[in-house]
């Protein structure tokens, strides 16, 4: 489902003297449907960078990055938009929302973007929020006022609203207590069971061992290490 070959990335900081910072070279990775692959490595090694490249958030310097049928490295922006809408989900570390939008709307949005009828989308959102222990009285409030853990759970609910065939999870269990962590892990297991290909970053080693079928250390892709 996700196939990465010979991927490389560097940043050029024009406003700091044109410094070139290579961050990745010859990265290779595959994730099959129903599989969960965990990215490991020290902070700054490039885990999030790799994930963002898969999502199309960072430009690829070289190599192939195929998700489903689309090579994200060379795709047109609108192809990537279509990919993100139907195929590729992403739960980032930070919840970014339009201010003053109710939580229920935030979570329902991926379904609405796909044309799901509003009532059905909201029902599904409500079910997810309930499962993630967000009380109903918060559903009509904007998540920008929530605690870190609550925001994270809203973020996860949004990421799992639609059954994406491919899913990118960046620290989904961070700042969650044990019971909510278990909910998230079971969501991941369910996604795997329906055939989703999942790429995840988990700081929590226990969680990682529980859901990941394989683990890939991105330190191996860092240019300095390779040299």
């Amino acid at each position, binding site marked *: 489902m996700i196939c990465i070959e010979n991927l490389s990335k560097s*940043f*050029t*900081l*024009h*406003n700091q003297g044109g410094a070139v910072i290579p961050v990745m070279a010859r990265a290779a990775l595959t994730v099959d449907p129903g599989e969960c692959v965990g990215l490991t490595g020290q902070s700054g090694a490039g885990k999030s960078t790799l994930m*963002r490249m898969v999502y*199309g*958030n*960072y*430009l690829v310097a070289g190599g192939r990055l195929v998700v489903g049928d689309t090579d994200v490295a060379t795709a047109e*922006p*609108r192809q*990537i*938009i279509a990919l993100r809408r139907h195929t590729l989900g992403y739960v980032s570390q930070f919840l*970014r929302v*339009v*201010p*003053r*939008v109710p939580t229920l*709307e935030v979570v329902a949005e991926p379904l*609405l*973007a796909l044309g799901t009828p509003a009532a059905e989308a909201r029902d599904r959102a409500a079910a997810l929020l309930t499962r993630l222990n967000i009380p109903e009285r918060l559903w009509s409030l904007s998540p920008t006022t929530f605690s870190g853990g609550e925001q994270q759970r809203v973020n996860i609910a949004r990421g799992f609203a639609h059954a994406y065939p491919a899913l990118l999870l960046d620290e989904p269990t961070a700042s969650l207590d044990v019971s909510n962590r278990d909910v998230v892990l079971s969501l991941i297991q369910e996604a795997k069971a329906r055939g989703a290909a999942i790429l995840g970053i988990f700081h929590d080693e226990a969680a990682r061992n529980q859901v990941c079928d394989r683990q890939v250390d991105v330190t191996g892709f860092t240019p300095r290490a390779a040299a």
Partner: protein
Amino acid sequence: MTLMSRVAPADQPLLKVERLTKRFGSRIGCADVSFDLYPGEVLGIVGESGSGKSTLLSCLAGHQRPDLGQIAYDGFDVLGMSETGRRRLSRTDWAYVHQNPRDGLRMGVSAGGNVGERLMAVGARHYGQIRARAVDWLGRVEIAADRIDDRPSAFSGGMQQRLQIARNLVTAPRLVYMDEPTGGLDVSVQARLLDLLRGLVRDLGLSVVIVTHDLAVVRLLAHRLMVMKSGRVVEQGLTDQVLDDPQHPYTQLLVSSVLQV
């Protein structure tokens, strides 16, 4: 010119712009601008003052005539069209949301009359139905129905802007040009307006070209982004990619200069 069909094939660009150039004497207004816009896409154009973004928008919307380049809407050559054709397009298929709502509204006409005008312009002749549609649209932009007979001069800035949006969208245009639609509005009002616009884009399948200097607005609203400097496009791509991984020096400067709240 035949009436446009309402369903554009999703693999054909709704708007195709090639090498658009507008000069003012020896000064460049905008130069060599090319892009495609597909149905349901929001394209943001950002730049600082003098970047040429407003010139570009006014050339696209037919308010000014470019010196070079092509604009094709749904396959039709817009610049080669008669003015009759262009005006008809701007009444039916296009919409233009001005930065200052007073420029886009008739201040001497009631809110209901403002919203109903485009309907009456395309032949609606049943008062009751026109009024019902006006009430519907006022509801969609969250203006209370009992204000339908008030003049826009009695509305707040945010309400005027929402009324302008309702007035423009009532005939279901396919392409909307927006010039700093949230500029001049209170921050608290901006957020609701942005969410409203997102919902309308999604529900109506609108294509939008939005010009703004506010990067936060484009991040929330636009799928794709074009960065302009001195009349030229220096970078374009997915919004989040351009903002998170800027390649061009000017873009990097722009992004890093945004004040954090």
